[in-house]
């Protein structure tokens, strides 16, 4: 039965896709998305898109929003870039020329950098779902960074691990660009605070069929803490294999991976005992987060990750800003989105973003999660 439903959804999606290419009709604003929808990172892209879809459907179900006296609905135009920056740039050109979008959501740093080369000229907002700090530090006037930057996590995770877990670190991150930046930052932070890095062997998630060799190389150096990260699922395999080889220490989990998803693949919460990472959405106790999780589960039948929640609130914020300014001009929206987010109903704002910095970063309270006695506990960052 489930398969039949999935088939129906696929047909619906295909027909929807056909109507999408027709361009914006009167009373409709196109919003662009480019991200991985096929290949190894397809799940990540689809999760991102699911948050956007949910927000768009909520807005449209309420009859759209008021744009200069006209009821306007949202039409999401999603293109697949297979995680490639070059393809993302081509998609962005297509989206601006064919669909005249004022904003493009994009969930990977490589693509964001590619789009920043021409977004001011072509006049569209880059809605960047990436926590690489340089995305906003470059001073692009039409970029909004949706999640918090990871430099705060690097400091907080290091402090906590050095205090509670031990001083020797085995680096088992990953080899993609994002993971490399993370790894070099954590290595610097770790050694500058008195810890030692005993092994460094990042995993190549795209080229390795197996991680046993790489993990055994790190375990051979007996670290007290292991740095792991990448997409949640392969990270879970690395964690599982480390435990199988007798590793007893804790983990620093890079923010791309979510502890709850890692635990599921690794074989239970006890496998990730002593792990430090970002707080999974499922652990949030706030009304706003709970209400979002409930609606998302009704719709998609699974637990939402942060990529769904952040993009959901970002699209709502974008539309609120258009509503408030009666404009679809990217520069005007960029100026108004901070206030729009702060004024937005909390049910649309699961992470309770309160402001946007001058450089375009969403402001959220960052917290860290640790696994203690088989439970994920949320701790404040000093």
């Amino acid at each position, binding site marked *: 039965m489930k*398969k039949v439903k999935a088939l129906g959804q696929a047909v619906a999606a295909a027909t929807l896709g056909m109507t999408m290419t027709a361009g914006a009709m009167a009373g409709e604003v196109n919003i662009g998305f480019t991200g991985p929808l*096929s290949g190894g990172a397809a799940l990540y892209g689809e999760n991102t898109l699911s948050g956007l879809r949910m927000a768009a459907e909520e807005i449209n179900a309420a009859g759209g929003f008021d744009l200069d006296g006209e009821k306007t609905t949202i039409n999401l135009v999603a293109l697949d870039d297979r995680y490639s920056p070059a393809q993302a740039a081509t998609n962005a050109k297509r989206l601006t020329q064919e669909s005249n979008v004022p904003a493009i959501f994009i969930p990977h740093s490589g693509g964001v950098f590619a789009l920043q080369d021409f977004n001011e000229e072509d006049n569209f907002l880059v809605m960047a779902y990436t926590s690489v700090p340089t995305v906003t530090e470059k001073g692009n006037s039409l970029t909004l960074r949706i999640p918090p930057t990871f430099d705060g996590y690097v400091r907080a995770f290091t402090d906590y691990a050095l205090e509670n877990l031990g001083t020797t670190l085995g680096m088992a991150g990953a080899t993609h660009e994002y993971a490399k930046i993370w790894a070099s930052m954590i290595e610097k932070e770790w050694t500058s605070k008195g810890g030692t890095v005993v092994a460094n062997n990042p*995993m190549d998630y795209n080229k390795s*069929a197996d991680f046993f060799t790489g993990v*055994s190389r790190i375990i051979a150096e007996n670290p007290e803490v292991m740095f792991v990260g990448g997409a949640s699922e392969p990270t879970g395999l690395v964690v599982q294999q480390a435990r*199988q080889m007798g590793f007893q220490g804790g983990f620093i989990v890079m923010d791309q991976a979510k502890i709850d998803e890692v635990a599921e693949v690794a074989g239970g919460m006890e496998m990730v005992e002593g792990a430090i990472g970002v707080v999974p959405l499922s652990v949030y106790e706030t009304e706003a987060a709970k209400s979002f999780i409930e609606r998302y589960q009704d719709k998609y039948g699974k637990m939402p990750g942060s990529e769904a929640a952040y993009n959901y609130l970002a699209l709502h914020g974008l539309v609120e800003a258009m509503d408030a300014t009666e404009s679809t001009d990217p520069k005007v929206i960029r100026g108004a989105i901070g206030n729009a987010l702060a004024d937005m109903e909390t049910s649309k704002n699961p992470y309770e973003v309160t402001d946007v910095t001058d450089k375009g970063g969403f402001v959220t309270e960052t917290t860290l999660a640790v696994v203690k006695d088989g439970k994920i506990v949320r701790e404040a960052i000093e």
Partner: protein
Amino acid sequence: MNLFFQQIINGLTLGSIYGLVALGLTLVYGILHIPNFAHGALYMVGAFMSYFFMTDLGMHYWIAMAGSAAVVAVLAILCERLVFHPLRNSPPIHDKIAAIGILLFLEAVVQMFWGSDFRRLSSPFTGIMNFDGLIIPEQRLLIIVGAFALVIALQLFLRKTMTGATIIAMAQSREGAFLVGIDANRVAMMTFAISGVLAAVAASLYAPINLVYPAMGHLVIMKAFVIIILGGMGSIPGAIAGGMIIGFAEAFGGFYISTAYKDIIAFGLLVLILSVRPQGLFAKGAH
């Protein structure tokens, strides 16, 4: 010393999986005379079928594996009948394009039904054996034993039975096989079925220690291509030896030098071997 044996185990595990996939590829090469690019997709479908039989129908691991092997064998025969057979008189480039088409088609179909989520296939063999510090998870041992058993069974079939001999005859010389009255259609279908079975079994063996997702075939098939070039296109011992060479190069190179260089080591070996024996390790002559 334990670490050394640990790498032997790792090399054997990887080599077994690579070898099984490469075997199917090399067998089909004997019929098509092009590498079957869709083989990785068959591998992926094999994993998804086992997943489906186990999770949705509640079957036992072994039965699910057998079911998956049967489904993929039929699928491989269908590919031969519907796509490659009608193309038998076309230039080889048509076969290549068709194979890539099948690959994309199967991936899209699987993604449509199951989505792109990463899935776990849980096998009943989750225990870990610990021989005084040498750690061997049961599933990994099963992979090694299973692969060896399958290779021996395949060898016996090809060498000791008449049907097996027709496959070898066809791979050695098409015209010769026709002259002695071998039914080419039957042999082609059988070869495809065997390649499907090998892919499905390899995937079902390997999936419990890895993830199941639509793009899972890419990685393994890339290695399998390297292996059949290394071992000699169409050569069965070549596929097995090549699989082990690449598996061991990855395990030992990855451990003693760096995992960042393990592909360089594997491909460096490829260059070295091909410069000494351009036709591959075991190929008897150019096709």
